[in-house]
């Protein structure tokens, strides 16, 4: 019994890393989440990138578990995944690299990956390992909300993990409400009908979609991803949501600069004094 109470308290602390960060929006700060692929550009860059991102004032970090066939991603993230796998990244190795990450960083960490590697690792074992490592949440694009709700929700909850779902401009209001009801952190709002890495900027249609979702007054805050690549797109997106996610643009930055220069990239998106 006492163990259960302690565990609940522990869960509470863990969940609060994501939820606490989301509170900043209420204080007028727009959240910035950065994605990178673990094992890229160099196999052992994972820890340094995470530490540098935290120092640069980023609010969330999404750690990409590389997959051979990332079908929701564009060429930039796919190439980084292919490279990371060639470098030798595996699920076990990633957990090994992150094993004492909580000694040095306090930032919310979200693992983003495709379902098959997690299935092979064992879903429960994977969730347990995430919790031991100090991972706060997961984004699994090809685990649909329906399947999660029926088969895996209890496992994720047992280990205090927040699972983040995506919505798109084509998602019906009814389904958005359903996703909102299953969610327990934030909703990942895909900016447009596209895979990751598009840099077209936001047109009127996209803005109308942002407004439509904002007007739904969902329980969970929304963070916009896909197509955010610079200060302009970050500012445009966060007018309508709690924050925004940058993936491909940061991976490109890593391609050019290696794991150095993270703070200058983050500053170019959201100058430290700006918000």
């Amino acid at each position, binding site marked *: 019994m006492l163990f259960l109470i302690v565990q609940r308290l522990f869960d509470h602390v863990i969940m609060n890393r994501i939820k606490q960060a989301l509170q900043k929006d209420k204080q007028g700060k727009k959240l910035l989440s950065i994605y990178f692929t673990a094992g890229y550009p160099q196999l052992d860059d994972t820890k340094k990138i995470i530490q540098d991102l935290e120092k640069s004032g980023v609010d969330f970090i999404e750690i990409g578990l590389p*997959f*051979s*066939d*990332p*079908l*929701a991603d*564009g*060429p930039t993230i*796919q*190439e980084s995944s*292919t490279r990371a*796998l060639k470098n030798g990244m*595996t*699920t*076990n190795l990633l957990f090994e690299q992150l094993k004492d990450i909580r000694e040095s960083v306090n930032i919310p960490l979200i693992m983003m990956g*495709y*379902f*098959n*590697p*997690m*299935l*092979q*690792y064992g879903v429960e074992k994977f969730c347990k390992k995430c919790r031991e490592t100090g991972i706060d949440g997961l984004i699994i*694009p*090809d*685990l*649909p*909300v329906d*399947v999660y709700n029926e088969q895996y929700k209890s496992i994720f909850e047992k280990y205090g993990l927040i699972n983040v*779902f*995506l*919505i*798109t401009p*084509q*998602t*019906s209001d009814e*389904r958005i409400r359903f996703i909102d009801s299953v969610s327990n952190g934030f909703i990942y709002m*895909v900016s447009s*009908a*596209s*895979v990751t890495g598009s840099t077209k900027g936001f047109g009127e249609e996209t803005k109308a979609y942002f407004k439509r979702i904002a007007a739904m007054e969902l329980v969970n805050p929304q963070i916009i991803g896909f197509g955010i690549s610079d200060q302009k797109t970050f500012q445009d997106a966060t007018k309508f949501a709690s924050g925004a996610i940058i993936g491909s643009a940061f991976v490109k930055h890593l391609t050019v600069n290696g794991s150095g220069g993270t703070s200058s990239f983050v500053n170019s998106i959201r100058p430290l004094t700006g918000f």
Partner: protein
Amino acid sequence: MSNTMTYQANEKGYYGDFGGAYIPEMLYPNVEELRSQYLDIMKEESFQKEFNYLLREYVGRPTPLYLAERFSQKYQTKIYLKREDLCHTGAHKVNNTVGQILMAKRLGKNRIIAETGAGQHGVATATVCALMGIECIVYMGEVDIERQAPNVARMKMLGATVVPAKSGSRTLKDATNEAIRDWINNPVNTHYIIGSVVGPHPYPDMVARFQAVISEEIKVQLKEKEGRENPDHVVACVGGGSNAAGAYFHFLDNPDVGIIAVEAAGKGIYTGESAATSALGKEGIIHGSKTLLMQTEDGQITEPYSISAGLDYPGVGPMHANLFRTGRGEFISITDDAAMKAGMELAKLEGIIPAIETSHALAIFEDRKFKEDDIVVVNLSGRGDKDLSTYIEYFNL
């Protein structure tokens, strides 16, 4: 075990443990639009009428069920060949593309995308798009484009745009990834014609139903020839498994009919150069479906190998994964060498040059013996014209 045991998909698209729709949210509206309508559309009288008309007048159905006498004599059993090789475009693939183009029209789509490995499905898709005057984009691995030049030329003649898939291993699975990405980027006006019984529900079931015309005809033709509808065994090669799904369809739930699935062992099952998914695959998710697939311990999808480009898919349709797991299907793997030999043998004995995919199915008779009075139907899924350069190289013709 209850009497309602079925090897067909249930309404959620599961065949036993396999199937379902493991898709990113970006694909949900497209797939859901199709899922919620495909059965109703297929049942419409006008749809059936148009589908059957095109199969008859355009594809050239019914295809003969031919008693291969000399081949039968050699293997001491009664072997019928279901001549899908005589379909327009040279293989069974067109049954599905005719069905799906009519589906796309009814869903109001004006742009078609498809993936292709060897190019057969790409050609079959480009063909029906030309027929209907609909824009067609075919994704094909860069490596496959190089080794399948004649089919690339065919697709171009038919007005399709062939887009090279440059990601990953640049073969069929990557072409499929690219097609899925295209669909994510074009969710409203585009229909994705998947070429096999793979992908998220409802594709495996829908494609199987379009290919089911094969076993439907077998029943009628066998009744005429033998006085009975059911053969003792149905044999088909399995890559993704669409010709097999069509050949088995009406026999799936009849335990008196043996189902034999033939996979490509490549250079040998355990050589690292194989496509024998049932032997080498583990349960996992590929292209939106839970099925058996070849992967590393870490869940990374691996690249299969077979001399036949149509069989080197790292997964297998969920129907077949279930046939394997339940033991309903007998799975046999055939090496490159055995397949090539069987292809040559059919040419010499029957005057039919089969596709190398089909040659795998024909090769089982060397070791798998049947009773003399057994009736064995082999689905002759495609003709060998497309494989001539491989035959030439292999046999120094």
